[in-house]
């Protein structure tokens, strides 16, 4: 029996705002020099403390919504989601239940469109650390991450294959990075993935779904789809229906393991957080945010290519906001040098953190001048090498083009290693 994979994704992304979601504490859980440094009564959930939402985090979430063609809510609110866990000091997480900031939206992949259900904003939990102190196993809590702004992107069940999943997730990450709102560091947990997976025969949505958690790479996400496809196929082949459950992905063994079934699903007792007044999002505010909407990855690549950069170089540059800034400035300063600069960046030939685009172009210019004068000096050397090796020249002309490397090496050797190999190669070809 053949089945079609149906997958929806839930993606959590930690925003890189200066302060946390509901207090003024520094938002930098990954670089904190020690645990429980960035804390206050609010993110520790102390008696009497009150949350005040971070406007920047709200704007960043709306920004992503605008980039992904979502509808921006006119009225939104925060709700309390209750559950018991030691890393949740208030006994509830402030999240958004039925009025998220962004509704709908989509991201296109080469395999088809992935529609979004919603994008909402919530707070991250603290972090538990299981350690041994004085020979005793203990659980420690680090509140540096408590109440860090966390964006959740939920998709419709539009993902049809592991390849499509990878392309979608990468595309989403690239957009978030391009907008400058999050680093999406998967290893540290700055971007966390969950998959809702089921199989269908006829394309209709079946009455069960399996949720897979603890996925921390795009490859693992794809792997979990492969594994679940196999596992669920076998169950369906037997005429049974896979259990509605939550499973965890184990990267070491590349399989998923049952964690929780439907029977003990939590009742979160959502209700509007009375400490936070509803958000009224008027069009003036949205327009202000819209002005921050930078170009999206596809557009950036197209622009770079049309400016003369190769597509492969453009893709590398896109991954690094600093490279992008560098090349943009080069484009303004000297459009003719964009192609070379693009290649140099992609090939890591420019220390773009140290050197300014102006200095780079200046150096390039003097290099070019050197080369021109060098050309006139190289030409005789090239001729000399060819004249010294008539047999090899004959072999080259007979088709043994691999000999070119020998000539290049010989010329460079004669210049004391100062000649540019590419220039030498060109000169040799001209003379051969």
């Amino acid at each position, binding site marked *: 029996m053949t089945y079609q994979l149906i997958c929806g994704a839930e993606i959590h992304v930690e925003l890189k705002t200066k302060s946390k979601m509901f207090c003024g504490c520094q938002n930098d859980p990954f670089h904190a020099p020690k645990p429980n440094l960035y804390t*206050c*009564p*609010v993110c520790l*959930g*102390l*008696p*009497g*403390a*009150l*949350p*005040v*939402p971070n406007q920047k985090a709200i704007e960043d979430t709306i920004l992503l919504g605008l980039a992904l063609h979502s509808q921006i809510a006119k009225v939104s609110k925060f709700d*309390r989601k*209750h559950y*018991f866990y*030691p890393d949740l*000091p*208030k*006994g*509830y997480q402030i999240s958004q239940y039925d009025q998220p900031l962004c509704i709908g939206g989509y991201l296109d992949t080469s395999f088809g469109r992935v529609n979004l259900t919603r994008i909402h904003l919530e707070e991250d939990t603290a972090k538990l650390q299981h350690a041994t102190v004085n020979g005793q196993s203990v659980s420690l809590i680090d509140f540096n991450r408590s109440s860090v702004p966390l964006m959740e992107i939920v998709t419709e069940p539009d993902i049809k294959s592991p390849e499509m999943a990878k392309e979608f997730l990468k595309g989403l990450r690239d957009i978030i990075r391009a907008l400058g709102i999050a680093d999406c560091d998967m290893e540290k947990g700055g971007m966390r993935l969950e998959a809702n997976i089921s199989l269908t025969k006829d394309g209709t949505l079946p009455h069960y779904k399996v949720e897979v958690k603890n996925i921390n790479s795009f490859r693992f996400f794809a792997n979990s789809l492969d594994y679940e496809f196999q596992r669920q196929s076998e169950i369906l082949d037997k005429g049974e229906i896979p259990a509605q459950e939550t499973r965890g992905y184990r990267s070491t063994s590349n399989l998923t393991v049952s964690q929780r079934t439907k029977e003990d699903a939590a*009742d*979160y*007792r*959502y*209700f509007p957080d*009375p*400490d*936070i*007044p509803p958000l009224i999002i008027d069009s003036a505010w949205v327009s202000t945010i819209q002005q921050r909407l930078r170009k999206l990855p596809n557009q950036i690549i197209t622009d770079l290519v049309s400016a003369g950069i190769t597509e492969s170089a453009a893709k590398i540059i896109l991954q690094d906001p600093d490279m992008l800034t560098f090349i943009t400035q080069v484009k303004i300063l000297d459009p003719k040098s964009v192609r070379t600069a693009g290649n140099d960046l992609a090939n890591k030939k420019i220390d773009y953190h140290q050197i300014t685009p102006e200095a780079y172009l200046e150096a390039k210019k003097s290099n070019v001048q050197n080369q021109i004068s060098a050309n006139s000096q190289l030409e005789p050397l090239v001729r000399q090498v060819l004249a010294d090796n008539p047999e090899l020249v004959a072999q080259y002309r007979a088709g043994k083009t691999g000999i070119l490397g020998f000539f290049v090496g010989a010329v460079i050797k004669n210049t004391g290693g100062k000649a540019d190999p590419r220039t030498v190669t060109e000169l040799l070809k001209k003379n051969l």
Partner: protein
Amino acid sequence: MLLDKSILELLTGYKNKSIDPVDVINEAYGQIDKYSSKLNTLITVRDKQEVLDFLKTLDSSLPLYGLPYILKDSYATTELRTTCASKILDNYLSPYDATVHKKLKEAGAILIGKGNQDAWGHGASTENSDYGMGKNPWDPTRVVGGSSGGPAAAVATRMCAFAIGEDTGGSIRNPAAWNNISGLRVTYGRVSRYGCVAYASSMDTVGPFGKTAADLAIILKVIAGPDVYDGTSAPHEVPDYNLELTKTPNKLKIGIAPEMFGAGLDQEISNNAQDFASKLAELGHQLIDISLPVAEISDAAYYILAPSETSSNLGRYDGIRYGNTRDLFTQESMRRIMVGTYELSSGYYDAFYRKALKIRTLLIKTFQKAFEQCDVILLPENPIMPPKLGDLISDPLANMLADLYNTPVSLIGSPSLVIPSGFHKNGLPIGVQLVGKKFSESLLLGLGHQYQQVTEWHTRSPQL
């Protein structure tokens, strides 16, 4: 006693050196020593020497210079533990100060103790305290009222110049009336809630207790205003409530709703409210019949919303932090947590919580309509006189019904002033409630001040 004097008299005395603030503080500690343990008025008392030392560091030009005050134990303070009258927080010392405390401190007032209350604000009697049932200074066999019973009794027994209570469903108003003092429930958002241990966040308000409306005006001016730490605090400008006291017109329209004087209301309390109305008429105000068909539905809505919110707010006392386990919750708190948890459960939210929100909207509209006809609404405060200690603790429903005149005001977020209005034949004090539109504190305090200029009920204190 020096502490019989108004705040203005004390402050004037400090300025012209006719009164020494040290004497006032000594007097307050004298009262605390004599009565606090007997009446279970205070949970924690600050070291007197520490207070006197602190006094020496204060600039005498500060607006509340040297005034000793009591906070309800629901306010976070760095000087004294904050128990909220629950053993769960028995040893809890807050690392930060509640905004109200910070403001009072900065204005020169001095915290000398934390008042008893129903644990977590759950109750209207101060019987549900883990630090002993609060006793009424007018009759120690009866309840003091609550939940802010301790701070109210502290003002009545002159243990302080003023106190700060917290009113969710009547917790300032009820004990103000039963202790013959003045108490103000402020407009929701008027005073920052930051640092006030939450009971029902959408109705919790921070307000003052004092001997007179004029005293309340002086304190309110200091504690009111927006706070960056409270997203629900209102941006409205803070008027000089003290200056506005004398500007209140004497031709206000006073609304009286006959529905609010029906079954369940003690006849003497009813008569007292009518007498109060007549007095206002004598002062030149106009009495107007209004309709407020809200009594039954507002109690029902309140007892859905408040337990729901409290079940959420108390989730943090999960036994992992603060050193004590959950079995230390009182019966009343457990009841409210259970009820609230049930009401928020999936499948029941629409049947209870959402419906209660609709009632809340309906109440707001009903009161808006009433306020089109009048400036102030006169209501009785309590339908009954303070019960004997322990009489109602096992009758939660009767306790809830006692909130009849309080819950509608809590739900609509309006301010309400309670002032002494006479005595019952059993010798206990009665208070009335003046309810205004949002942010009409000036008007209410002015009207109360007018009444207190021509009456002397508020000058009486309990004979201990």
